[in-house]
């Protein structure tokens, strides 16, 4: 494998609060290679957004403690000065957020947003930057880009606004794009458009993408590799096809079984995960964090299990005997016909 573009090592993010330390990210390590699309999937509070925000130095909270390393092209983002980081952000690493309206300033036009971004990183005239903005808007599929460049955010629909944000993110041709729930606020038919767009832009520009989402379907459509997070840790990580067809961690099983089948079959009840996600403020963390909700819990779930590579490239952090997993998965994912 070639040199990774982003190499995150043992990243830990915690917040000091009045009620104690809240651990949002609890020692995750992963790499993103050039041209890779990595899906980071998990529920609210799993640490998926915080992990990427902390890597980019976007957490503006004096009570936040970030430990570990995040090597981008060999340089540690976590020890960079603000000026160095500013040169990387926007130019080499760009981010797309969930809500395109809050990512845009309502009093400026789409063209201003994009040319501002270009001019922050490159020495070009306003005119040239605006011309680039038109090209970019055209590339992300906004009709009449030459006119629309003068439109304000509120004049665009949600999907079109997200396209403007994508155009902004791509304006400096970043080698890494971090997309945090880019389609969650959009309707399904518009979501399909934006995902197609991201895919085609990815193959055209060759950027790597880290896609943060709660939607297993979106992840499986977009990513080469999938990482499933729970309680700030990686529950499972591996190539997409492996994780989707041969999930190994009981949390991944539950997550998949919680989604109503999309193949046309109907079940009476879903094999839902009982209980609620673990609170990141819980001080007792030396155990499998999913064990409280896991039907296969036993004494071996304590202390905290290691991430093990059972199949080449496919990691999981469960202590269940590997040989039994297929059978246990069948039990866990079979929809329940009647209430227990």
């Amino acid at each position, binding site marked *: 494998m070639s040199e990774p573009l982003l190499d995150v090592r043992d990243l830990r993010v915690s917040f000091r609060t009045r009620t104690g330390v809240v651990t949002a990210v609890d020692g995750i390590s992963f790499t993103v290679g050039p041209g890779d699309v990595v899906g980071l999937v998990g*529920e*609210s509070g799993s640490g998926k957004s915080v992990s990427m925000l902390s890597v980019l130095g976007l957490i503006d909270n004096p009570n936040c403690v970030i430990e570990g390393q995040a090597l981008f092209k060999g340089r540690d983002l976590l020890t960079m000065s603000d000026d160095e980081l500013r040169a990387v952000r926007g130019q080499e690493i760009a981010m797309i957020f969930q809500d395109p309206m809050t990512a845009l300033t309502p009093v400026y036009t789409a063209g201003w947003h994009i040319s501002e971004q270009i001019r922050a990183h490159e020495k070009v005239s306003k005119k040239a930057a605006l011309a680039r903005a038109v090209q970019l808007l055209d590339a992300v599929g906004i009709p009449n880009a030459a006119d629309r460049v003068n439109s304000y955010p509120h004049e665009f*629909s*949600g*999907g*079109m606004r997200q396209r403007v944000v994508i155009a902004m993110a791509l304006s400096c041709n970043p080698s890494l794009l971090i997309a945090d729930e880019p389609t969650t606020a959009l*309707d*399904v*038919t*518009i*979501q*399909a*458009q934006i*995902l*197609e767009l991201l895919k085609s832009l990815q193959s055209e520009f060759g950027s790597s993408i880290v896609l943060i989402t*709660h*939607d*297993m*379907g*979106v992840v*499986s*459509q977009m990513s080469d590799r999938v990482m499933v997070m729970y309680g700030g840790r990686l529950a499972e990580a591996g190539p997409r*096809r492996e994780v*989707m*067809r041969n999930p190994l961690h009981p949390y991944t099983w*539950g*997550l*998949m*079984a*919680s*989604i*109503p*089948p*999309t*193949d*046309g079959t*109907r*079940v*009476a*009840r*879903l*094999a*839902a*995960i*009982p209980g*609620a*996600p673990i609170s990141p403020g819980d001080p007792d963390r030396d155990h499998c964090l999913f064990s409280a909700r896991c039907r296969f819990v036993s004494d071996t779930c304590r202390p905290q299990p290691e991430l093990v590579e059972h199949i080449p490239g496919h990691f999981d952090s469960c202590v269940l005997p590997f040989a039994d997993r297929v059978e246990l998965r069948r039990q866990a994912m079979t929809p*329940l016909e009647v*209430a227990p």
Partner: protein
Amino acid sequence: MSEPVVDEGGLLLKARQIAKHFPIRTSQGKQLVQAVDGVSLSVRAGETLGLVGESGCGKSTLGRCLVRLLDPTSGEVIFDGVDITTKSRRELRTLRLGFQMIFQDPYASLNPRRRALATVEEPMLTHSLGTNAEIRARALMLLEQVGFDPSYADRYPHEFSGGQRQRLGIARALAVAPKLLIADEPVSALDVSIQAQVLNLLSDLQRDNDLTYVFIAHDLAVVHHIADRIGVMYLGELVEVGSSTDVYTAPRHPYTEALISAIPVIDAEAEMRERIVLTGDLPSPIDKPAGCAFNPRCHYAQDICRTDKPTLQLLDDGREVACHFPL
């Protein structure tokens, strides 16, 4: 427009030609947002009717018209043989014992200063449905039914998680023992694992209490899971109605087909799905396209679709589709 042909027996709710127009002021003067435009539907006792569509299709407005949280501009809603559209507010109060609503945002729909038990008791006190002791007992029973142990009774909404708040909202809706529940996006604000729990709870409650549901959501996979019949809405109109399995596995309206193909599936390779990516955005309900409202985005559109508006027709397989060229 043809009336849907249905067996009149066992109908709990029937809506005829519901329209809801909102007047607005724009730079072009006064205009009408045609949020719901001539929707007729019927719900049989004990079934779940799913209403699905994208934002702005009028599904929530329709849901609110069905319980008269909004007064429809025209049309009538007949609940259990009574036309509720002509009733006064006072009469509605009693009638609403028969139908209740669950909302999308369980936090906004709960009083932050009222404890869980009081929240569930309130509708019963309002309607004087028993002595205080009976009401308290029933409220505790309902809290248990939606999965809370008694220690939760004295908690305030902010002490509950999103899924728990939604369950509290469900308990409150059930307090007056309604026959019909209208659920407007009840699970879309929840995490998937919690969403599955609430969907299971709704299924259990339906079975145990003989409930009838109108389930409004944008997620077709969820609607397919919970509903017996599905109505697909586009720009204020129903474009396809049929059994859940039929609509999902063999859609006959091009919009339904596109909506289904847009669902991101977990194992796309295994399902061998052909993706139809719709071009363009949803047109504005202020200025609807002439002819079929879907024609600007439709892959199959022909000349007639741009001039003549198709009406909901009953096809030979029992499906109702508003399309000149059903699939």
